[in-house]
């Protein structure tokens, strides 16, 4: 009889954990890096069976748009297709090193997980990623440290170029323009791993006029984690 009760309790708990609750949350994202900028950030509450990216799987075209050029248009398209609640571009542009941004979000009943993405600059197709993090139902403040991913869609040549999906090179918005070199010969060819994976980091070089890379190796490298996400559940 006792065992039966335990089983019932376990079954009830399992049922309870699958219950969906609307949540009133604040999402804060801090750029922890020494020299990287984040493009406009998307923080997306969605159903557990949806996903913006999966390690080991090819990036969607929509994710590629974000990772190669910082555009949130594709993420917005996915967001409406899956009925997500979306915070888009809370920083109103680039998020500079060590800066924070935050926004409030009311999530619908079934949107029980949170994903966060933003491109990192300078990079070819690097992005910060939080993947289907379960939003706690208990009120409180929760902290998650997140890593840099490579979308696997573009060669990491580390050269000035384009932010259009499928076009080579890195987009270079104004705050980065004076910091990057010119005339690099290109660091790397197409990724060996063409699925989403942990980014190997920038190589860079120490010349602003030649060398393999337009990235400054003393400024634009990083070690994980690269961002802190703080979620307050009310």
């Amino acid at each position, binding site marked *: 009889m006792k065992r039966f009760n335990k089983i019932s309790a376990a079954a009830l708990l399992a049922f309870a954990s699958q219950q969906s609750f609307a949540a009133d949350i604040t999402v804060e994202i*801090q750029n*922890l*890096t*020494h*020299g990287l900028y984040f493009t406009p950030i998307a923080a997306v509450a969605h159903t557990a069976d949806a996903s913006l990216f999966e390690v080991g799987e090819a990036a969607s075209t929509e994710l590629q748009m974000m990772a190669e050029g910082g555009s949130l248009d594709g993420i917005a398209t996915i967001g409406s297709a899956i009925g997500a609640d979306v915070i888009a571009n809370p920083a109103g542009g680039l998020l500079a*090193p*060590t*800066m*924070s941004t935050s926004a409030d979000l009311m999530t619908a009943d079934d949107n029980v997980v949170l994903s966060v993405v933003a491109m990192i600059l300078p990079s070819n197709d690097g992005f910060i990623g939080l993947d289907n993090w379960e939003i706690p139902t208990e009120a409180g403040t929760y902290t998650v440290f997140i890593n840099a991913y490579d979308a696997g869609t573009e060669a990491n040549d580390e050269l000035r170029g384009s932010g259009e999906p499928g076009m080579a090179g890195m987009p270079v918005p104004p705050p980065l323009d004076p910091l990057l070199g010119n005339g690099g010969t290109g660091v790397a060819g197409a990724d060996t791993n063409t699925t989403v994976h942990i980014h190997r*980091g920038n*190589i*860079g*070089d*120490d010349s602003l006029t030649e*060398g393999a890379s337009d990235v400054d*190796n*003393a*400024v*634009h*490298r*990083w*070690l*994980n*984690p*690269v961002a*802190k996400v703080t979620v307050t559940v009310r």
Partner: protein
Amino acid sequence: MQYLAKHYKKALVLTLPFLLAACGDDDTREVIVEVEVPAEIPDPVPVSYDVTVTNLTNGQPVSPPAVVLHSEGTLWEVGAVASVELERIAEVGDSADFLMLGDASAGGVGPITPGDSQTISVTIDDITDANLTIAAMLGNTNDAFTGINSWSLANLEVGATYTTVSPAYDAGTEANTESAATVPGPAANGEGFSPSRDDTGFISMHPGVVSSDDGLSTSALTVEHKFDNPVIRIQITRTE
């Protein structure tokens, strides 16, 4: 917080039978006298911790760690401007000023070489919910440091141990040139603390050292000095 309570209280009420011989009758008068005497001050109860720091890097000496107990706020955090006290740790490993910041503190003795550990004991009286902050330099860098920021000790019972690891941070006070003139550790024996600031201005995660082997031709560092996170392990045991 007994020690903060009023140290004096109305301790004695004396009822004195008092004969007034000068009076013509035999009345006995009672006079109540209140005197204040010091209440007993309880002996302070020491609360002590052993903090063991292990160097996880290949070629970065960790400067003598500063271990500080304090009641509130933070002594450093990512996104903040480094204090001069922290800058002195991050640029040259000198913790003397930083150790003055909290309610109780203790510093390590000598650098911790790669693979080695050092245990630092720190004691505070009566307070069991202090916050712990640790800071120590990675010696073969411009201004890299590691540690923990304001970790609450409130739930650490006597005899219990908390273990964590810490990444490398950048104080943001000195550009990461890695040059022989600016790295104070044994790899270069360059300048230590400099009051001028020529970097981002904010504490961040450290990007790692590049080294001459990996493309920074003016670097005094080699592949021996590269590191990845985490760089130290910290074990905190409450001993009393």
